[in-house]
């Protein structure tokens, strides 16, 4: 049969840019293919600040994970983890406590395969392939449940992923799906492309995303706060990414340079 019915499993298509590999490229990695780099270069021509924003996003992740580790959280679920790169969640967390549990979740088959290859020997980390838009399925994964104790607080990381979830897919319900499954004291970490600071050029870049890989939905600070409405925002609330607990005041940058929001919320 030349033509295969659609119930057959999907192909691994490396002819289309992948969000995970393009992001790796922004961060100076080489876990990517020509098609990813060509796409990333087009985005960078429109939005040269993307590299900086990616670095800042990674730095936020590091600060947030460190913060959660400092308040005693010892298990993390990183949703939409992408290609592992310098400063992975488990590296940051293990620098505080080497027994901290980390589960990486991504739907990208290559990112998933690579993550497993890298983390194969680490008993405290697990990689699963799943669609973060289906909280029930993700949380029902036996490997995840083996690693995570839902009676204890969990750090759920939704870093730079929710802007790939359209309103029709009900992002607030997705967030609630994770939050409701976790114990009080759990935290959600969110970074999200912002409406504020989005320029004409960056809009074009978002269009590029829309055409090539994934639709990007920018949201306002209020909308992002709405995504975690059932939870308590940790100080300083929903803010521009670099302003979320910077290590020093002069490390912050403008909206124009990095139009990204960040927030950490606590389940009471």
């Amino acid at each position, binding site marked *: 049969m030349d033509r295969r*019915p659609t119930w057959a499993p999907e192909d691994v298509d490396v002819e289309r840019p992948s969000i995970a590999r393009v992001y790796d490229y922004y961060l100076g990695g*080489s*876990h990517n293919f020509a098609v990813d780099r060509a796409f990333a270069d087009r985005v960078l021509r429109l939005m040269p600040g993307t590299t900086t924003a990616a670095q800042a996003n*990674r730095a936020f992740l*590091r600060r947030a994970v460190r913060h959660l580790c400092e308040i005693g959280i010892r298990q993390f679920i990183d949703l939409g983890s992408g290609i592992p790169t310098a*400063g992975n969640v488990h590296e940051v967390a293990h620098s505080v406590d080497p027994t901290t549990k980390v589960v990486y979740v991504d739907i990208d*088959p290559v990112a998933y*395969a*690579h993550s497993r290859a890298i983390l194969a020997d680490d008993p405290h980390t697990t990689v699963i392939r799943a669609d973060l838009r289906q909280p029930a399925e993700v949380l029902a994964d036996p490997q995840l449940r083996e690693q995570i104790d839902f009676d204890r607080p969990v750090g759920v990381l939704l870093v730079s992923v929710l802007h790939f979830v359209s309103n029709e897919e009900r992002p607030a319900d997705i967030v609630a799906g994770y939050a409701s499954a976790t114990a009080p004291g759990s935290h959600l970490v969110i970074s999200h492309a912002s409406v504020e600071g989005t320029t004409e050029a960056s809009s074009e870049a978002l269009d590029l995303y829309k055409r090539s890989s994934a639709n990007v939905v920018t949201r306002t600070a209020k909308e992002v706060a709405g995504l975690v409405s059932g939870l308590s925002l940790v100080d300083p609330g929903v803010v521009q990414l670099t302003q979320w607990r910077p290590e020093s005041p002069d490390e912050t940058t403008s909206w124009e340079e990095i139009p990204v929001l960040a927030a950490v919320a606590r389940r009471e």
Partner: protein
Amino acid sequence: MRASKPEPTDRARSAPTPERIARAWARAMAGTSYVSMSRRELHSYLSGLASRLLSAATAETFEPSVGYEVGAALVDAHFTLPTSLDRTLCVLAEQLSGAGTPARASALQSALAAGYAQALRDRTLAEQEEIRAAAMLARSEAEAARWSSEARFQAVFAGAVIGIAIADIDGSIIDVNQTTCDMLGYTPAELRQLAVERFIHPDDAPGVRDAYQDLLRGEREHFRLEKPYYRKDGQAVWTDLVVSLIRDQEGQPQYVVAMIEDITERHHLQIRLRHQALHDPLTQLPNRTLFFERLGQVLDDAEEDARVGVCYLDVDGFKMINDTLGHDMGDYLLLGVARQLHSKVSGPGQLVARTGGDEFVVLVERSAGPEQLVAIAEAALTAIREPVQLGGHEITVSASVGVVERAADTTSATELMKAADTTLHWAKRDGKNRWALFDADRHAHEVAKFELSASLPAALERGEFLVEYQPLVRLLDETVMGVEALVRWRHPKLGLLGPDRFIEMSEETGLIVPLGQWVLGEACRQAAAWQRQYPEIDLVTSVNLAVRQVQDPGIVDVVSAILSETGLDPAKLQLELTESAVMGTAGRPLQTLNALAGLGVRLAIDDFGTGYSNLAYLRSLPVHSLKLAGSFVAGLRPPDSPDPVDKEIVATLIKLAHTLHLTVTAEGVETPQQAARLRALGCDTAQGWHYAMPGAAEEVIALLNPRSTSDAPTLDAPTLDATTVDVTSGSAAPKSAPATNGRRPGAAPDGVAVPTSTVGTASS
């Protein structure tokens, strides 16, 4: 990328420290690459590297490889973007100028660049290798997943006991499983050459094609039906088919999957069961159910002006054959009849069915007219008359056929078969071995008669009957010597009905007994009233007794009771009996007659001469009078000359009666000539319109009011001469004029003859 600004010269001149270098370096490196370090961590990291570089620059033995290692360490810390190297070289060019020799500084920087390039190259190649390996792993996993999915699917597909076929939306068959091939008798390769269209079967339900088109357009997800397929060898396979739509990732229709279950056996069983349900097991002809189903269809589907007909056939005397030759022979005969009918009258549009024991029906779906139906009935009768061999006997049977033919849109199956049943009974009643064609008028008449008959008992209850009286006149002197009581029915819808409309049917139903008794009682009451009122008048009241009344064992008691109840002198009562009532073969009539005579009542034989009277027997009967049948008297009516034969018969009968000492009454005397001729022949008494119509009691008594004459009442014959009415005797003429004052106008508009002159003095 521009090099960072040189430090002030006074500071450059002083010896560089790792701290100072690290500060400048960290500042220059900020944001050039992503490193997962806080500012302090970064400072500390770079400070370490600076320390090593400074040591190398000022060491006794110069080791330029330190620069190489520092370059590699930068890549290791993920300073992977070239700007980081650029900035590093700029910062070090300045910061290392105060340490060691310029040659050493230059060598360290060169080595650092080489170490950085080598490490970056290694890292890049390693990462490229990793991601490629990851992609391959992902692919092979997807492949494995697909393989196991396909293997599962193939196992299901190949091993399924139901047929599975996959077609694209253009109707090309892409794949079929072995079960499908076995079911349809093709090889997979042959089936893939065929289009879905090829499998449309003429017996497919009308909606199938539409359902399939809806599916292809994506307007429905699946449909299910039972349908036949033609096998390659031409045989039909009945299937339970479920057709489902498969869409692509964008939701567009992509494939059609058919799941085909072979239900041929079940289908044949259903057909067989249906055949059994709709056919007679003995003759294999369609049964009553199928006949009515088909008739219903024909009537439902009938076009305008279409006509339909049935021949309803019943074997004559079948019960006798069954009873005498046995049921086996009866069945055998029916089988023979069925075969004959099937071969001679069934055909396209002509269904022969067995609807009951010995009942068959031919349905003519499109009748050309009654002639066609009659021809079919004739053919059926001819076919049935063919001799049949039954257990060594050659037996010939006949049948009767009821034929109904009518416009399809004016009838229903029930009506049609009711009419056929009625018509079959006509054929039976008319003598069997024949057909009868339904006649609406005859039917309407019968229905009316039946309805009338059915309403008789209630009418008697409600007192709708009344009694009229017709004078009996002594021919010798034309005096009224008696009256005959005649019953009438005042029907609420049909008006006043004479006995000819209801006596016969009341005899059939037996109602004649209570009705006759009522009339007898009523007449006796009236006669008794007259007897008390006019004791001087010698008036006989004559009342008819029906055969069944005479046969009724209680009749003597009834008469006796009525006489004593009313107080009527038995001698004033005459009972009229028909010849058949009197001449019964059994002894009972004679006993009854003797007992009645013993009560003292007179007995008369009514309609004498129409039966076959045993004259010898007549002689021994306690009878007082004969009433000549009206038919003989009618022969005397012609004004010019009477019928000589009738005249002779009447003369002989009168003579006979007188020989037996019986008086003779002539009925139906309508003209003066008749009266004169009867008188000349010696007839004793007469009644008829020549003298008076039957009338109410008070009208009749007015004719013989004793105050009008000192002697017996006399009818003034001349006044009656001109008043004859040409209506049959016994039928009630309308009587519109009230008789409140006991008087009726002479020559009334309705032509009723009344003796006006006599009556005229009656009330004065």
